[in-house]
C-alpha cells in the first residue's frame, strides 16, 4: 500500500468512527459522568419496565416469525419461476422495502379500527401492530431467503431430484440448506422491530424503544437513556450473531452460474406457497392503494397537502442523498479491510445497527449542542448525521459482500498494468459501482423515511416528510396523509427504479 493508500485507509476509518461510533462513545461518556445512584436506578428496571421489555420482545419475536414464515414461503414459490406472480413478487420486494412501517400502518389503521376493542384492546392493538410490522419486514425476509436459494449449488439439487420428490427435496435438502438464511431473515426482522416504536405507538401500544424515546424526551439525559437502553441493546446485539454467520458464508461463496432448474412442484404445498406469495404481493399493495384511493376524490386537499409537504420532501430527499453519498466514502476502503479481518471488523461495522434510533438522536445532541468551531447543531446537517449514524454500516456490508464475490484476478491485473490511482479510478471503482449503487440506495431509501432520530434533531423550520406524515397519522388516515405518503413512496420508487435500471446496465 503506498502513502496515498494508507492515507485513504486512515481517513476512511476516521470518517466511519466519527459517523457511527462517535454517538456510541458520546453516550458512554455521558453515562459514565452520571452519579452512581442514578445509574443504579436506570439500570435496574422496575416491574413495569421489565414487563414492557418482555412485551416488546414478544412482539418483536412474533413479527420476526410471521415475516420469516411468509417471506420464506413466498421465496420458495418464486424461486426459478418466471410466472407473472413470481416476477411481481420480486418487483414488490424491491419497491415495498422502501415503504416505512408507519405507512403500512396508514393502510391498516381503518381495518384495525373496525375490529372489536380497537385501540384500547390490548390484544387487537398488538395483533394489528404485529401484522403491520410483519408486512414491513416481509421484503427483507423474502429477499434474503430468495438470495440464498439462488445461491444454492444447482448440482446438489439436481442430484437430490434424481432420488426424491420435490416435497422431500424441500424438507430434507432445501430447508436445512436454507437454515442460515432463514435465521438471518428472522434476526434482521427482530433487530429492526426491536428498535422501531412507530407502529405500536400508532396502535396505542407502548414498547421499550418508545419508553427510551419518552425517557430522553422527559429527561434530556443521554447517559441515563443509554443505561435504560442497555437491556434492549443487548437483545439487539444477539440477532447480529446469526446475521454475521450468514453474511460471512454468503460473502465468501463465489456466485454460481444458474443452471436451468425447474421450480418446486410439491402438490398441496405449492398451493400454500402460492398463497403466501399472493399475500405478500397483493395485500400490502391493495391495502395501500385502497388507503390512498380513499381520499383521491379530494384533489384540492391532496394539492394542499403536497404544497405544504413539498419543502419537507425536499429536505428529506436532500438529507437522504447526502447520507447515501457520504456513506459510500468510507465504505470503499472499509469493505476491503472487512474482508481481510472479518471477525474483528464485523462487530465494529455492525454494532451501530443495534443502537435504538432515539439514542442516536440523544447522542448527536450531546455531541453537537456546544460551542464548536463547526456550527452543526440546529442545521440540516444534524439530520444527515442522524441518517448516517443509523445506516452507514449498510454500504460497508454491501460493498464487502460484492468485493468478496469479485474475481481477485481482475484487481491484480489492474495492479500489473496501471498505477494504484489509475487502477482504482478505472478498474476498482467501476467494478464496485453496482454495490455502491445498491448500498447507496439502501441508505437513501431508509434515510428518506427515517423517523426515530430525526424526531430529536430536526432543525427549526426544516421538518422532514416522515415527521409530517407521522404527526398527521395520529389523526388517522386522511387525505393529507395519503397525499404525503404518495409523495414519499413515489420518490423512493423513482429512485429505486432508476437504480435498478442502472444496475442492470452495469452488472
Amino acid at each position, binding site marked *: 500500500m503506498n502513502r496515498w493508500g494508507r492515507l485513504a485507509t486512515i481517513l476512511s476509518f476516521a470518517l466511519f468512527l466519527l459517523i457511527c461510533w462517535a454517538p456510541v462513545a458520546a453516550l458512554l461518556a455521558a453515562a459514565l459522568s452520571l452519579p452512581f445512584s442514578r445509574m443504579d436506578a436506570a439500570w435496574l428496571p422496575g416491574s413495569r419496565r421489565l414487563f414492557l421489555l418482555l412485551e416488546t420482545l414478544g412482539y418483536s419475536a412474533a413479527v420476526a416469525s410471521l415475516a420469516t414464515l411468509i417471506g420464506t414461503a413466498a421465496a420458495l414459490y418464486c424461486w426459478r419461476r418466471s410466472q407473472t406472480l413470481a416476477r411481481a413478487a420480486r418487483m414488490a420486494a424491491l419497491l415495498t422495502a422502501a415503504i416505512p412501517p408507519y405507512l403500512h400502518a396508514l393502510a391498516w389503521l381503518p381495518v384495525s379500527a373496525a375490529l372489536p376493542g380497537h385501540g384500547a384492546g390490548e390484544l387487537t392493538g398488538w395483533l394489528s401492530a404485529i401484522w403491520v410490522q410483519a408486512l414491513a419486514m416481509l421484503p427483507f425476509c423474502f429477499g434474503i431467503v430468495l438470495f440464498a436459494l439462488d445461491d444454492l449449488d444447482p448440482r446438489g439439487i439436481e442430484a437430490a431430484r434424481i432420488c426424491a420428490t420435490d416435497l422431500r427435496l424441500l424438507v430434507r435438502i432445501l430447508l436445512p440448506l436454507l437454515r442460515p438464511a432463514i435465521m438471518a431473515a428472522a434476526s434482521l426482522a427482530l433487530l429492526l422491530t426491536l428498535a422501531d416504536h412507530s407502529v405500536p405507538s400508532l396502535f396505542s401500544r407502548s414498547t421499550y424503544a418508545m419508553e427510551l424515546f419518552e425517557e430522553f424526551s422527559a429527561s434530556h439525559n443521554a447517559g441515563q437513556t443509554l443505561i435504560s437502553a442497555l437491556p434492549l441493546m443487548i437483545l439487539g446485539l444477539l440477532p447480529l450473531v446469526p446475521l454475521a454467520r450468514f453474511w460471512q458464508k454468503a460473502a465468501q461463496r463465489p456466485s454460481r452460474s444458474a443452471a436451468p432448474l425447474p421450480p418446486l412442484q410439491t402438490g398441496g404445498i405449492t398451493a400454500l406457497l402460492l398463497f403466501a406469495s399472493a399475500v405478500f404481493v397483493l395485500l400490502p399493495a391493495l391495502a395501500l392503494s385502497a388507503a390512498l384511493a380513499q381520499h383521491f376524490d379530494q384533489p384540492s386537499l391532496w394539492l394542499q397537502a403536497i404544497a405544504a409537504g413539498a419543502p419537507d420532501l425536499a429536505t428529506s430527499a436532500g438529507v437522504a442523498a447526502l447520507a447515501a453519498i457520504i456513506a459510500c466514502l468510507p465504505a470503499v476502503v472499509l469493505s476491503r479491510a472487512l474482508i481481510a479481518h472479518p471477525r474483528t471488523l464485523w462487530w465494529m461495522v455492525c454494532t451501530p445497527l443495534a443502537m435504538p434510533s432515539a439514542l442516536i438522536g440523544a447522542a448527536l445532541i450531546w455531541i453537537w449542542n456546544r460551542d464548536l468551531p463547526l456550527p452543526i447543531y440546529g442545521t440540516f446537517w444534524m439530520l444527515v448525521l442522524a441518517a448516517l449514524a443509523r445506516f452507514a454500516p449498510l454500504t460497508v456490508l454491501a460493498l464487502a459482500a460484492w468485493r468478496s464475490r469479485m474475481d481477485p484476478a*481482475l484487481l491484480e491485473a489492474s495492479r500489473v*498494468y*496501471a498505477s494504484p490511482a489509475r487502477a482504482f479510478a478505472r478498474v476498482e471503482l467501476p467494478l464496485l459501482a453496482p454495490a455502491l449503487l445498491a448500498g447507496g440506495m439502501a441508505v437513501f431509501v431508509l434515510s428518506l423515511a427515517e423517523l426515530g432520530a430525526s424526531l430529536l434533531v430536526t432543525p427549526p423550520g426544516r421538518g422532514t416528510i416522515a415527521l409530517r406524515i407521522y404527526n398527521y397519522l395520529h389523526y388517522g388516515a386522511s387525505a393529507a396523509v395519503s397525499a404525503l405518503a404518495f409523495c414519499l413512496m413515489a420518490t423512493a420508487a423513482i429512485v429505486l427504479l432508476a437504480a435498478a435500471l442502472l444496475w442492470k446496465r452495469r452488472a
Partner: protein
Amino acid sequence: MIELKEVSKSIGGTLVLDRVNLSVEQGECIAIVGPSGTGKTTLLRLIAGLEPLDSGSILLRGTEVSRPGWQLPPHARSIGFQFQDSALWPHMSLCDNLAFALNSGKIRALECLRRAGIEALASRRPSEVSGGEARRAALARALAPAREIVLLDEPLTHLEHALRDGIAQWIAAELKAANAACVWVTHEPAEVHGIARRILTLKDGQLRQMQSP
C-alpha cells in the same frame, strides 16, 4: 532479464518455494510444469510483485525489484501477465481493456487486437465474446509489443484442442518478434513443445531441469 536468487515463500505455514534460483535470458522462453498446488502460480506472482517474498531477491533487467520487506509495485515492473482466467475487466470493451493496460490510445490497442486476429470484436465487452476470443484478448494484453518480460499462467487451459495449436503458435511468434523473456506455467509439457527452450519442474518447493528440448 529475470533472475531469482534463493527465493523462499510459505503460504499458510507450508513452504511453497524453497530457496529457488532461476535465470531467464532475453528472448528465452522457459516452461515450468507440475501438478496443481505445487506453487507454479505463486512463483509467477512473486515475479510480478503481486506478493511479497519471505527471503531471497528478484531482479528484473538487472535491477532488484523484490527483497524481504520491500518490493517495486507491479505496475512499475513493465511486464505482461496472463492470468489463468483471462481476468479481462468486464466493464470495458476489449479495445478499452488493451488501451488501459498499455496506457495508450485506441490505435495501439486496435493494432494489438489485429495481431491477435480479433480486431472485429474490439468494441465488444468480455461477456459478449467466446472463451477462446477472450483468451486471445487477454494474451494480446500480456504480449503487447515492447513488453520484454512476459509471464503466462496456463494460457491454453480450458480451451478446445482445435484452438490450442493455433494460439500456441501465435504466442511463440509474438514472443519471438518482441524478443521477450517468458516464463510459461503449465501442467501439460506437450503445450510448450518447440516453444520453450528449457522445461523445469516444480516439486517440493524446488525447481529441477526436466529436459532440454
